[in-house]
């Protein structure tokens, strides 16, 4: 059975054109005018884009199924227009060996989007001993991170980079120097001072960015910086790229949308790691996404139960939902051409995750049919209860945003039609 996406503006890395797209048997079979198919998906007034790729999703399985499962998180991804997500390894047990990778991939095989997993850099993400990266790489793991923690020890990070480069995989770093960040629960600055909440200084992130740029230059191994949140970090990455160092970077949706002032409500829904920063840092994240210093938008989708997010601010876990709102916030907040937003969400992260040719376009005959159709003009109001996620820790409640996903196609299967999930 074939599906035709009618009347949309097709956007991929090769440009834009108004065209119909026909999908059959998992592949794009035709792109052109006046095409037909067995099922018709209306795309008039909409953009037809490569399915989005999230480099940074916490799917919580195994271990925290009360907050999210690979299945529920994948449906949230589908509602957000993502055809692929990279799961973070801070599960219980952590994804630090072949057995857990296999478990996650087996669950992911039944999920509506393509689920890739990262692997931990160190055993149990404890930063002491290298995890068996080769056996995980054999199973297809392309991105390694201790996310949730940074690798504290410079000597160990050096060895990890050398080892990873030999395997042709990439290391991704959650940049945070523990000895500066320990005990902190929000950005250290004017607001933490007023609110009496212990802070995490920007320097906790920037010192590790600085160190890993030096190590990347030294070893020649690529390193990807996760969820950069400060002006200093972004400036260093920009300069390092110009100097030819093999670094890439992502920014999380909330770091270009929210600021530390949001914590003044003491609502732990605004607690996240790295923390929300002042407006100047938020603006720097926007600038970095606009000028290419930052490659990709990642969601850092981090579900937590209501109970966990109703604890006192300093006892609640960090993290917020992001998969279902990423596109709309990017279109609403970034002031970038739609095509650039699409790139930040699709072909650019796909390249970092090693998914080129599978996800992220281009939209041409014979390519795998991983697509997303969205209306760039539709405005809607975020309702935390209207979600596919098992959790509700959405910090954008009652915010009116612009841009809404209509249809999502993964591997040729239409899994979302007019925002309605089709299991």
């Amino acid at each position, binding site marked *: 059975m074939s599906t035709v996406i009618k009347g949309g503006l097709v956007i991929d890395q090769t440009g834009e054109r108004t065209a119909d797209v026909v999908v059959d048997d998992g592949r794009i079979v035709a792109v052109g005018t006046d095409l037909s198919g067995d099922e018709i998906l209306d795309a008039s007034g909409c953009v037809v884009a490569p399915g989005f790729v999230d480099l940074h999703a916490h799917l919580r399985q195994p271990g925290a199924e009360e907050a999210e499962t690979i299945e529920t998180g994948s449906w949230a991804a589908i509602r957000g227009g993502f055809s692929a997500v990279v799961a973070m390894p801070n599960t219980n047990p952590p994804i630090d060996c072949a057995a857990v990778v296999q478990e996650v991939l087996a669950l992911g095989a039944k999920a509506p989007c393509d689920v890739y997993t990262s692997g931990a850099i160190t055993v149990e993400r404890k930063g002491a001993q290298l995890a068996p990266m080769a056996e995980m790489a054999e199973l297809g793991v392309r991105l390694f991170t201790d996310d949730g923690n940074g690798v504290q020890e410079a000597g160990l990070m050096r060895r990890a980079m050398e080892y990873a480069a030999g395997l042709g995989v990439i290391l991704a770093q959650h940049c945070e120097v523990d000895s500066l960040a320990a005990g902190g629960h929000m950005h*250290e*600055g*004017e607001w933490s001072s007023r609110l*009496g*909440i*212990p*802070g995490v200084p920007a320097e906790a992130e920037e010192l590790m960015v600085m160190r890993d740029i030096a190590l990347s230059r030294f070893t020649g191994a690529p390193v990807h910086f996760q969820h950069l949140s400060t002006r200093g970090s972004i400036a260093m990455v920009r300069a390092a790229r110009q100097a030819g160092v093999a670094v890439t970077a992502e920014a999380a949706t909330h770091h270009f949308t929210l600021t530390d002032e949001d914590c003044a409500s*003491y609502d732990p829904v605004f607690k996240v790691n790295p923390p929300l920063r002042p407006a100047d840092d938020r603006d720097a994240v926007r600038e970095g996404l606009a000028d290419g210093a930052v490659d990709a938008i990642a969601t850092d989708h981090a579900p937590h139960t209501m109970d966990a997010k*109703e604890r*006192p601010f300093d006892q609640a876990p960090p993290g917020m939902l992001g998969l279902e709102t990423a596109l709309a916030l990017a279109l609403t907040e970034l002031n970038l051409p739609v095509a650039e937003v699409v790139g930040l969400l699709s072909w650019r992260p796909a390249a970092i995750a090693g998914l080129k040719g599978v996800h992220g376009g281009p939209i041409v005959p014979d390519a795998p049919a991983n697509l997303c159709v969205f209306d760039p003009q539709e405005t809607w109001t975020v309702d935390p209860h209207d979600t596919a996620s098992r959790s509700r820790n959405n910090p954008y409640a009652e915010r009116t945003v612009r841009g809404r996903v209509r249809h999502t196609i993964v591997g040729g299967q239409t899994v979302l039609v007019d925002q309605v999930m089709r299991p």
Partner: protein
Amino acid sequence: MKHLLSINDLGADGINEVCRLADLFTEVSQRPIPKVPALRGKTVAMLFYEDSTRTRLSFEVAARRLSADVMGFSVSSSSVNKGESVRDTVNTISAMGPDALVVRHRSAGVPHQVTGWTSAGVINAGDGWHEHPTQALLDCYTIRDRLGSVAGRRIVILGDIKHSRVARSCVMAFTSLGAKVTLVAPPTLLPPAVDSWPVDVSFSLDAVLSDCDVVYGLRVQHERQAEALLPSLREYTAQWGLTVDRAARLPVGALVMHPGPVNRGVEIAPEVLDQPNATLNEQVRHGVAVRMAVLYLLLAADPDLHPEGEAS
């Protein structure tokens, strides 16, 4: 005003109103039967997650002198140990219909969170490093009582300001009433971004001692040594302690204040506490009248009603 979470909820006018009411309640407290029926039929629930005998007792006495019923809830010993969340506890207490919850918690912001879970008024009795508004109010009342006014006074706040909820409330209260506040501490015990606070900062107590109307000492805890914020308490006392020698250099009539409990011999010498310009006992005494004023402001049906008028 429904809640008292921060001194900012009151502003200068609100602080002055509390002080005016506290004058009336001080008079009530001196009567043979120190009780008025102003809050008869109202219930005040105490929700203390942190031991604080003096603050809790002060609120309880204040509520009883206004004829309110007091609901004690001994959180530390019961439900918290069974893993009950703050929200569950607040729901349980709220089901009993209190008019106000007095909340003390070791984490900043818990009183704010509680307002979302109850229809009762919420009074912040100290939350983490954030605020302790009724302490600042009784301190304003004490300064006003001793020196006539807070406006124009030069007030030195001395000690561990970074970790002090009292300091945050006092800075707001004193400056909104027009005092000039100078924080004195080693840099490691100052809050971050202190330049955004409406204060002067000095690292030397000796430099400001002879030029102030009030020295307000804060408790310096032993943990600060282990956290590498101080080399040693001995060095702290030598540099920043209010020793007998330093107290002797204070201008005549300058007050020595402290929210208690005092680490005797660390931040203030015991002899200094016994001098007539030390106000620690008055602060405790004024605490009752000031908390009566706060409860009255929040709970009385007609806050303009004069309490004597209602006295039976």
